[in-house]
């Protein structure tokens, strides 16, 4: 059974890139535009992995991560943070979840696959 990845991304361009990079894989991808929508989709879609942008409307990425990690049924879903900010300017993310993986934009297809594999396989 293919693994499901929830991509939380407000910029359509980046979502298009994810689609392109993952089209030849077994992964199923679903798309949420902001943190609030993503929390709702976790309940319905039950993803195996979440790729999270930080600069989101309604519920920013760090707040989403906090709520996710404090919710017992979903706190074990692995998360990859993908942002155009450097990981140094987003240290709070690691305080919320030390196991989070960081993917700085721009990234290559290989890099994305490597990180995804490390998280869910």
């Amino acid at each position, binding site marked *: 059974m293919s693994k499901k990845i929830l991509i939380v991304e407000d910029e359509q*361009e980046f979502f298009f890139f994810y689609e*392109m990079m993952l089209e030849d894989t077994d992964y199923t991808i679903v798309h949420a535009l902001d943190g609030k929508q993503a929390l709702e989709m976790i309940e319905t879609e039950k993803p195996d992995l979440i790729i999270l942008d930080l*600069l989101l*409307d309604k519920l920013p990425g760090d707040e989403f991560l906090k709520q996710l990690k404090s919710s017992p049924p979903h706190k074990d879903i692995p998360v990859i943070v993908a942002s*155009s*900010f450097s990981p140094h300017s987003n240290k709070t993310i690691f305080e919320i979840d030390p196991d989070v993986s960081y993917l700085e*934009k*721009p990234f*290559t*297809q290989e890099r994305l696959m490597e990180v995804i594999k490390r998280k869910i396989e």
Partner: protein
Amino acid sequence: MDSLLQQLLKHYSHLKNYCSAIAHNFHFFSFTSIKQKIIFSSILLSTFPIFITIVYIYPKEEHALRDALIQNLDSIGHKQSEFIEKWIEERKADIWLIAENPNVPGVIYKSEGSENFYRLLHHLKYTRDTYRYKEIFICDRNGDLKITTSTGKVITNVSGFEFFKQAIIGTTYVSPIVPSVIPIINEYGSLEQGMPTLFITTPVIYERKIIGVVCLRIDVMEINKLMRSVRLGKTGETYLINKEGYMISESKFLSSLKDFGLVKQRTTLELKLIDPFTGNFTKGVAECLKGGSGYDANGYIDYRGKTVLGFWQWLPELEWGIIAEIDKDEWYGSVKKLHKITFSILFLLTLAVVSFAFVFGKKISEPIVYLTDVTKSISEGDFSKRVNISAKDEIGELSKSFNKMADFVEEKTHALEEYTSNLEKIIEERTKDLTQINKELEKQSHDLEKAYKELLTLDQMKDKMIRDVSHELKSPVAQVQMAIDLWTKEIKKDPLDRSKKERFEHIISSSLQRLRKTIESILDLSVLESGRFVFKKEPIQMDEIIHQTVMDMKLLAEKKGLTLTYHSSGNLPVTIGDKNEISRVLINLIDNAIKYTESGSINIYGKCKDSYLEISVEDTGMGIGLPKEEYSKLFERFFQEHPTMYGSGVGLALCKNIVEAHKGRIWVDCKGIGKGTSFKFTLPVAPSENS
């Protein structure tokens, strides 16, 4: 002495404590005035001698008196005992002389009427009369009377009597005082049977044999004389008792005893010495009968029912007791009288001292009270009061000094009042100044605080701005980079997906455009803020500019399904400024309205208000989520309410800069989230050519 002094001090300390306790409990003794202090001190001082007298002198005196009494009674008792014993010895000597008389054997052996008989009788009568014996008689071994001085009734044989029995065995015997068995002459000169009588007997020894007995009948009144020979005050007496507790001498109080019916004729052998209240022997008698000697200086009840002080001594040879007694009242009476007199004198003295103290205290305290009242009045602010005491003593001096001081105080107080009044004025002025300064300082402090808070906000904003701007610069670059990477891979595929190609091209193009816009905006703002930008000053027909801009942007709005309309109010007056920059303001506002409106319309209004043109761009978009007081933040550099939307965050800051450079004003109105937004700006109307 030390212990007495200690006792005295202890008593006095108790008295003092008692007085203190009273003083503490009663306001009267709290000594708030000098008069009270003087009176109380005088009472204390004048009662001190009374206290000393009662506590120390009286007991001491009574003690000494008691010692003297004991000594006196003791010596009287002993002296009387000696008298009695000596007297008895003399009687024995008499009887021995008779027994040795050479005529005695002849008389015992021969019958009456011989020569020896008359010689002896003569001698016996002589002895009787000389020593006042009642009777002298001699009897033979059988107790038969051989010779007697008595002419009346006599006992012819005495062999049955104890005094004979004792003498015939060779003892010189002194009999107890007993009632006579034959009538003998009493103290009243008449014959009386049962008269108290005393016998002394001794054996007559002839050729070493006891041939008879000589007997003396002694008048006991002689003993009374002996007893009364020592005087002991009015009520003092010494008397003898026998072993049965009867008096064997005559009481000094015989007549009163007769009156009370306690005795008929005499006390000898009639008066039993008992306490009339208890019926027991009096203490003196009871103690004496025990066989010793002693005294009681505290007093006991005698046979008359009176309290007496007594001395007693038992004479074992005679089996008599001798008792010396004196009424307690007589002995201590004088002392008590002295006590009364002393106490009365001291009491009167105390009364006099207290009266004097009262008068003196009043005299002393009156001027002081007067002075105190005046001082009080002055202290309460009445400086007109002065002391009027003309005495030439220390009080008079004090009054003069006081008046001088009052003058000085009055003068200084007036000066002080004046000074205080001036000072108050100065203080009031200074306070006003200080209040003003304080207010200013408070304002400055408030401003500083506000500035500090703004600075903090600015600092936070700066961080946020750097983050947003960096995102705004990095994000399109990343998109371009990733698009190129993916496209490079994609073109290697066969067949080529053209739709993807177009998508990549669009992404690259729009990202680069976004990047350019952002960089241009930042550069423009930087130039505007530096003050180096020179605005053109040309007449602007605002209607034209609005029309043109709306036309240019209509397509963009319609792409999003929005209507963009200009509602002109007629010809707007000309304004002076930089046409391009004013257009940029309008473009920015309309661009924002399109960006933040999902459906509905965007309406532009232009109107003239007083000397200003007011242009408003109203949309039906999402509105503003900020509180009203923070709306001005929207016009700050790099502020983005929605950082995720495309935009550099400098557009509104640019608008503000341009409008204010044209002496206009820019602001925003919003009725809440989802109720649309209305951005408005004004520009001054150009002055008419006439003006």
